């Protein structure tokens, strides 16, 4: 290659690089940016505004103030719905994650037929969000449903799961816990990434497998635990389909999550102001929790580049 050719090539590629840093890239993200402004930022900002008004779908706004929030913190039904939501999240998220991690841990041993098990466990996650499965859930937990029929075989008289305020919320949680498959798949991939030699070295040092799990496995997959925790929290706080379809919020409002009140007030009763305020309170709680999770990261989440850095020191 002659010098001239080389030079022109270098020039060309520099030209291309200039193009890279130029406007073309912006053009590619422009549709997303417009979508963000129109479908996300504007609704997001306007709902903050509406939350300080009595916005009504047909009557518009007649007054401004903090009354929606006063309403929220004084209404027994709304406070109860927040309590119910917290209960729901506190039961669903830990149980789902622990189950997912436990099963992924077992699958990570050289198990024959891993793919079959993995597929089988994953099916509920794929279908679980559908209305069809909510219908099935109702059939399973009816008074004379499959679960009570099974208990009857064992000589136990099962309770009326869905009409007893004591159990109904747990049955709704169970529908989500049953869908642990997607978290499990993520855990499994992370477990596969833990270097084998770490286990071998610690076995030689006489570490028990329990010790290995807590001192090697858990720290090394902690970024993924963190990811799963945050995504599951966000999802659980917004749960709607399960209680809406299976229990309609009953019995005695024991499954009426905040998302259902937001829907009822905003879409059914056209009270957009109150509904926006509710959504914002839920959003702020969720943000605070996410923030706490992010801040707490440095105490329990280990990122591998950070570890390498430490090693070098």
């Amino acid at each position, binding site marked *: 290659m002659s010098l001239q050719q080389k030079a022109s090539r270098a020039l060309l590629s520099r030209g291309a690089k200039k193009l890279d840093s130029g406007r073309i890239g912006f053009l590619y*993200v422009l549709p*997303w940016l417009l979508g963000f402004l129109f479908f996300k930022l504007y609704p*997001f900002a306007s709902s903050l505004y509406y939350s300080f008004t009595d916005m009504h779908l047909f009557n518009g706004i007649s007054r401004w103030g903090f009354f929606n929030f006063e309403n929220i913190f004084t209404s027994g039904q709304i406070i109860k719905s927040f309590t119910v939501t917290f209960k729901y999240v506190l039961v669903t998220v830990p149980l789902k994650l622990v189950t997912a991690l436990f099963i992924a841990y077992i699958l990570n041993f050289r198990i024959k037929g891993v793919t079959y098990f993995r597929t089988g466990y*994953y099916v509920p996650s794929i279908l679980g969000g559908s209305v069809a499965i909510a219908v*099935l859930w109702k059939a399973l937990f009816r008074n004379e449903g499959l679960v009570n029929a099974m208990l009857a075989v064992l000589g136990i008289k099962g309770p009326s799961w869905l009409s007893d305020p004591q159990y109904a919320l747990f049955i709704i949680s169970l529908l989500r816990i049953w869908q642990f498959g997607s978290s499990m*798949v*993520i855990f499994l991939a992370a477990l596969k990434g833990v270097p084998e030699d770490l286990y071998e070295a610690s076995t030689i040092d006489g570490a028990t497998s329990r010790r290995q799990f807590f001192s090697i496995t858990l720290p090394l997959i902690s970024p993924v635990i963190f990811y799963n925790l945050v995504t599951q929290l966000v999802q659980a706080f917004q749960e709607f389909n399960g209680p809406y379809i299976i229990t309609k919020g009953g019995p005695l409002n024991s499954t009426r999550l905040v998302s259902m009140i937001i829907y009822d007030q905003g879409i059914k009763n056209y009270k*957009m102001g109150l509904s926006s305020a509710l959504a914002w309170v839920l959003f702020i709680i969720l943000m605070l929790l996410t923030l706490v999770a992010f801040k707490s990261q440095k105490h329990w989440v280990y990122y591998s580049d950070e570890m390498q850095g430490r090693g070098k020191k």
Partner: protein
Amino acid sequence: MTTAVKPRRRNNRRLLSTIIRYFVLIAVGIVMIYPLLWMVSSTFKNNNEIFSGVHLIPREPTLNGYRDAMKSYGGDIDLWKSMFNTYKIVLPKVLFTVISVTLTAYGFGRFRFKGHAFLFSILMSTLFLPQVVLNVPQFLMFTRLGWVDSPWYIPLILPTLFATETYFVFMLIQFMRSIPRELDEASRIDGCNSLQTLTKVIVPMLSPAMVSVALFQFMWSSNDFMGPLLYVNTPARYPATIYVKLSMDADTGFEWNRVLAVSLISIIPSLVVFFMAQSKFVDGISAGALKG
């Protein structure tokens, strides 16, 4: 002596723990899958038989559930129409999502423009923006625009043209990182413009990830209940999720074989797609989370 005993004891323990592992896996597997099998078997039972025991094989197999599932409620909608409506929504959504998300990921992944870092941080923060805050104001906005109950399902489909599902953008950016940039540069030198580089170099290598995006969007949109609940009012336009909910409300306590048959038929396309492409789902879900 001791050296001879120890390995055997260790082998026994290993065997025991292997047995326990399989036992747990199978037991959990049954809990996971039995309800689904029971659902399938119930669609072939009489209504008296469904709740009469835990058995799977119907004593008197019948197709009544399916026969009744075909009946409409005397309204403008039946199971087939509602499923047709579902895919009228799902297919454009899948297509638009794959295109818009790929373009956006390309823009963020391969170019450094003014405001790149800022826009990227916005993109990331929308990952954590819960839909529940957006529902009511979006409903208001779409109502004012006259899009609610549109025969073309505008509120459900149109946003996907604008890469609104940022999770997918994020996933593709992660995948794109593993495609060597030298390939882009080589194609530029060969005289390709940036769009040709995308279609001729990036897309062929990115296509497994794009398939994952399409599959997830297919599943999620087929299962979507909240969207149609908000934006579809005319019964003739109901998708399957709404139809299934209605048929359950109408029938509870009487015709469970029909209700379960309706439910089962409505998820068969999703099941077929899942079993044809299950490894893609697994790859997609772990890659999106892990490379981040």
